[in-house]
């Protein structure tokens, strides 16, 4: 049978995120709305609630509540794994802000959330973890900018911290005393916002500035565990994306950019990062990432690229493929963040901005499909490096990268 272009033919990219099932969550299963408690504690003088600055976009979360996503005046809470090992991830987030003319700050008064270490080694405790979170929140508040969290684990962990600080006065008071010693106020943001939620909120603006055609690209999405499984009621859902049954973050962006989202059966599985496993038990990480994720994606969806929205997932899914390839597994799909994918759509340089040379799995066929002359782009980047090496330039700047 040949497909004919009639009005009944549903475009491919609509099929995979569209669902004929309507999924209504029952209100009685909805956990309490944390906002009420947040503001009650503020009224009692327990802490300051930093308000989401205007202009913001309202999105829907799992149980139909609204969440405010700030557009600008954002304080970028960076991710150690992104900045350290896949720096094109963070660079792309900043680049998008600049291209959309949205004001932000990239602070040096910021530490890691330290949750990677906590989930790996347990050499910390609830009060210390909350202390680290609240120090960073206070630092953001002091600048007048609003925290935007780059890492999925920081985001999930900070939401756990919010729960603990709201419900356990003893933890809250212990942390308040520590903050006093640091000379800092106790501040809780009105919403804890992940950068991928910001991308979700501005996806139409990104699409409006799209320079490269992505309609021939097939994408599989790996939703990050710590984004939507930790304090799950606070992740973005949309009835138009998977009938509201899965988080819409990332997938809605891919749809907006005109690429095809392809489904695969192990979408709910984690990537295999494991926190301690990626560092000291990598046999597990490698096996899980290749056997349960990449191979399944290849067999069921054969994507051109895997898009995800967290530090550990990009690292794990990308780096684990090398050994799989050596063993003849059905792997070999490039992996990048939604931020890098969006930046490429808007015409970003694959090396100067997206810094893809930090990634492992071959991404060149993908760049070719995107219509990017990667050899010319690499030659340009080599010229930059020459200038840096000779001392003609000290750093590559925002002005240099376009």
């Amino acid at each position, binding site marked *: 049978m040949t497909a004919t272009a009639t009005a009944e033919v549903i475009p491919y990219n609509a099929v995979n995120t569209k669902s004929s099932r309507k999924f209504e969550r029952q209100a009685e299963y909805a956990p309490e709305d944390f906002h009420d408690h947040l503001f009650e504690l503020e009224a009692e003088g327990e802490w300051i609630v930093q308000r989401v600055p205007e202009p913001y976009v309202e999105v829907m979360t799992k149980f139909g509540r609204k969440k405010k996503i700030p557009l600008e005046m954002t304080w970028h809470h960076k991710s150690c794994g992104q900045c350290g090992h896949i720096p094109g991830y963070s660079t792309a987030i900043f680049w998008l802000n600049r291209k959309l003319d949205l004001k932000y700050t990239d602070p*040096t008064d910021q*530490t890691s959330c330290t949750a990677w270490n906590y989930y790996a080694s347990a050499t910390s*405790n609830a009060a210390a973890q909350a202390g680290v979170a609240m120090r960073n929140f206070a630092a953001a508040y002091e600048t007048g900018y609003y925290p935007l969290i780059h890492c999925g684990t920081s985001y999930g962990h900070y939401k756990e911290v919010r729960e603990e600080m709201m419900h356990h006065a003893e933890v809250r008071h212990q942390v308040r005393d520590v903050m006093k010693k*640091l000379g800092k106020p106790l501040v809780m943001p009105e919403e804890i916002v992940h950068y991928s939620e910001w991308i979700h909120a501005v996806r139409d603006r990104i699409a409006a500035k799209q320079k490269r055609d992505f309609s021939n690209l097939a994408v599989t999405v790996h939703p990050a565990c710590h984004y939507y499984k930790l304090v799950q009621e606070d992740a973005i859902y949309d009835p138009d994306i998977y009938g509201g049954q899965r988080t819409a973050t990332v997938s809605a962006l891919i749809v907006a950019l005109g690429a095809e989202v392809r489904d695969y059966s192990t979408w709910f599985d984690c990537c295999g990062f494991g926190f301690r496993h990626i560092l000291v038990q990598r046999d597990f990480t490698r096996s899980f990432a290749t056997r349960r994720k990449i191979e399944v994606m290849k067999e069921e969806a054969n994507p051109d690229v895997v898009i995800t929205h967290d530090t550990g997932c990009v690292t794990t899914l990308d780096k684990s493929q090398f050994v799989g390839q050596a063993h003849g597994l059905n792997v070999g799909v490039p992996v990048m963040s939604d931020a890098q994918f969006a930046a490429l759509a808007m015409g970003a340089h694959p090396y100067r901005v997206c810094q893809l040379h*930090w990634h492992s799995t071959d991404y060149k066929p993908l760049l070719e499909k995107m219509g990017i002359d990667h050899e010319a782009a690499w030659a340009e980047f080599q010229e*930059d490096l020459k200038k840096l090496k000779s001392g003609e330039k000290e750093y590559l700047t925002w002005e240099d990268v376009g």
Partner: protein
Amino acid sequence: MGLFADKYPDVAYQEKERLWEQVKADPRYPSYLYGCYECGICVAACPSARFYDFSPRKIAQAAAREDIDLIYEQMNDDVWNCSQCFSCNRCPRQNSPGGVITILREVAVKNGLKSAKQALEGYSRIIYKIMGTGTQVSPDMLQPDAFPDWGPQVREVSADLELWRRALPPETLHTTSTGWQVDDKTIIELYLIWHNTGVMDMIAEVDEGLHMILNDVMEEKLEEAGYEV
């Protein structure tokens, strides 16, 4: 009396009970375990259960039954296999077996259990990095001998690391020994948090050498900044 043979008969029941009381005393514990249907949904979602002899259902069951011997065994033999992904949070009973595991691990570390020390072997440099510098992952950790299974690309990064870092447009990312540039004042504040929340005592329990090095680094900086430790 537990359902399984006691794997650690040499450890006194009272000692196992003491540790269990610490787990239950954690303020998070009541919201991590409400009971268990024994439905196995958590196991179906659990990545570690696919690769190890490990089960979040068993963890939830042992805790719900307060099977002191089995909990002690799990605290030693099982908890370090967990990936802390929290896929098990889809539990229909609203449990968080992964959250229970976080607490079990914490109690194991706080009490210097031999298995916790073993689990953290080879991990000290990471703890040093995060506690000492404020960012957990740094570019200079990308060394081919540390990540041989990541292929030749790691060698390329490490060979030209300093140059590649200067080729990053964000001004804060030109660092090699930290993920980004962190202010001295910020580091001091982080040290004060570790000192004032009992984390330094936890480190002393599991790794004396690391504790000594960290203490030296921190004391010097804190004293310079006018804080008494």
